[in-house]
């Protein structure tokens, strides 16, 4: 019962937030002084007044902002996000296409950073203030202070340029028709960007997990487990992991936002044609419908992550699940 209530409450919240995101993004992009027509046809290319008129009319640039928002909102609800100016295709189609390559990247690194972060966090937390803890902690601190795109550049220089182990960029081999691309080829091209992307979030996960584990290790129930003669291995297996799991899961789903943001940079460095690079293109070239579409999709993604985290929390925590005498 409780779980259903939580799902309901979260969904309502997500819908209000999404509407707010839609309105805010719309206001932001439409108030831009950047002339969409000019940036569409690229600087330096002369546009005749007639052509300009035609394009502007086509996008409804002369209507009032409220009318335009109304229009756009109505279309969105019907699943029509407009037409991309760069690709001259429906935005939903472009996003769908790009999302497919991005999702490989994001899910690989989401899993890598989650597992790596958790394992390192557990090691640090269990052996708190030992040499190994200090060593890993310093590394995590430095990595969290390093821009992920720079790590990507260093990977490119070392592994692609110097050693030649990996391709310089792109999600697929160049000059191979899309039907002939195998999954392993896609994976091969996604490895470096995915590792780069993992770097943007694993250290945070590790540091947070460490904090949680040290707290657990200091608890009375661990002390009692020790007094009962349980081995360290057993204590970790029976108690530490169990208690660290809930916060770890929450953290993992909350990291979706970070992964999404990081993917934009990683894709840019590796010229990986995913959603992130498309967002940058849309922003630089003034493709308003596409930019809006990506902003919306990305926040749906983030909110879904949050909702899943909240639901899992409710399902995993017996206090909420069993619902007995629980007050905040």
């Amino acid at each position: 019962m409780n779980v259903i209530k939580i799902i309901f409450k979260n969904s309502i919240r997500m819908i209000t937030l999404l509407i707010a995101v839609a309105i805010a993004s719309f206001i932001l992009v439409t108030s831009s002084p950047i002339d969409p027509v000019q940036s569409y046809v690229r600087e330096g290319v002369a546009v005749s007044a007639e052509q300009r008129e035609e394009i502007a009319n086509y996008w409804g640039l002369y209507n009032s902002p409220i009318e335009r928002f109304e229009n756009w909102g109505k279309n969105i609800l019907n699943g029509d996000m407009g037409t991309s100016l760069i690709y001259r295709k429906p935005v939903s189609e472009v996003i769908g296409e790009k999302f497919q390559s991005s999702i490989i990247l994001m899910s690989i690194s989401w899993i890598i950073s989650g597992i790596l972060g958790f394992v390192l966090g557990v090691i640090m937390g269990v052996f708190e203030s030992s040499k190994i803890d200090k060593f890993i902690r310093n590394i995590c601190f430095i990595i969290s202070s390093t821009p992920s795109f720079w790590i990507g550049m260093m990977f490119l220089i070392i592994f692609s340029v110097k050693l030649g182990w990996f391709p310089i960029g792109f999600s697929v081999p160049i000059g191979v028709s899309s039907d002939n691309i195998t999954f392993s080829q896609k994976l091969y091209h996604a490895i470096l960007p995915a590792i780069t992307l993992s770097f943007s979030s694993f250290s945070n996960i590790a540091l947070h997990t460490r904090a949680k584990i040290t707290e657990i290790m200091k608890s009375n129930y661990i002390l009692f487990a020790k007094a009962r003669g349980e081995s360290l291995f057993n204590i970790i297996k029976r108690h530490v992991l169990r208690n660290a799991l809930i916060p770890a899961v929450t953290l993992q789903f909350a990291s979706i936002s970070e992964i999404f943001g990081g993917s934009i940079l990683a894709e840019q460095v590796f010229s990986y044609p995913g959603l992130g690079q498309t967002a940058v293109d849309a922003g630089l070239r003034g493709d308003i419908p596409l930019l809006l579409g990506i902003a919306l999709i990305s926040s749906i993604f983030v909110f879904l992550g949050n909702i899943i985290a909240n639901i899992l929390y409710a399902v995993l925590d017996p206090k909420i699940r069993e619902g007995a005498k629980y007050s905040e």
Partner: protein
Amino acid sequence: MKNIPEIEIENLSITFKIYEKGLIQKNIKTISNLCLKAYKGEILAVVGSSGSGKSLLAHAIMGILPKNATVTGSIKYKGSELTEKRIHNLRGKEICIIPQSVSYLDPLMKVGSQVMIKNNKSCFEKMRNAFKRYDLCENAEKLYPFQYSGGMARRALISTVEQTEPSVIIADEPTPGLDKQMAYKTMKYFRDFADKGKAVIIITHDIDIAVQYADKVSVFYGGTTLETTKAENFIKGEKYLCHPYTKALYNALPQNGFKPVEGFQPSPYDVFEGCIYYDRCDIRCEKCKENIPIYNFPDGSGFVRCINGY
């Protein structure tokens, strides 16, 4: 057999390293020169007011003190030194502790399964029998600690010692928070353990209840034991007790006048020479500022740490 105590503690001191103002490191002695003997088939009640470091004593025996603690003195089990390695192998098997509250149970594990030390059939049966004995219904196995009442948690904690056949059981504050009836019932469980031939050490500030079930009472004050005496002496009367503090405790009991003990317990930050009870003692004299000898009672039932002897 009676001559060799199951647990014998001599001159135990526990010191913690603490950072003071600036960067001066200071050592604070929470337990000093503590002596204790626990025999087979007996309940030894270690009584003293709250915050006097009694739980640390239990943790020291179990070898679960925090890392910044240093222990000196000796703890012997069955006549031989209880080294760190030895307690590692013995704890949870031959020496068991019953902690004081529900916070010692893993909040995310069903109580039944965490009472079981290993996940096998014999442990399961032992758990189920223990639950039955302590009036915990079968349903209680499947509940989480937060669904337990204080009394239930206490009984579940007690049932953990039935997983093995320990010869020493240390109970840390088993009665506070329980109503009188429950408290007596709990003490009865410990009496049963002792009658089955185990050595039971109960650490408590509930002197009233403790003296009714224990064989011996050890009076704990300011980090050390001032007197160990037969529990019956507490019932017989003030003149059977030796140390001024023990007498004061006796007089503070509700049935004996409820007289409060004046003054405060010394803090572990204060460094003491001589008798630790000096400040509050009615019969103090200059000699009390020197080293205080331990006088053992002739019948071997205990000792007193006071220059006036017994």
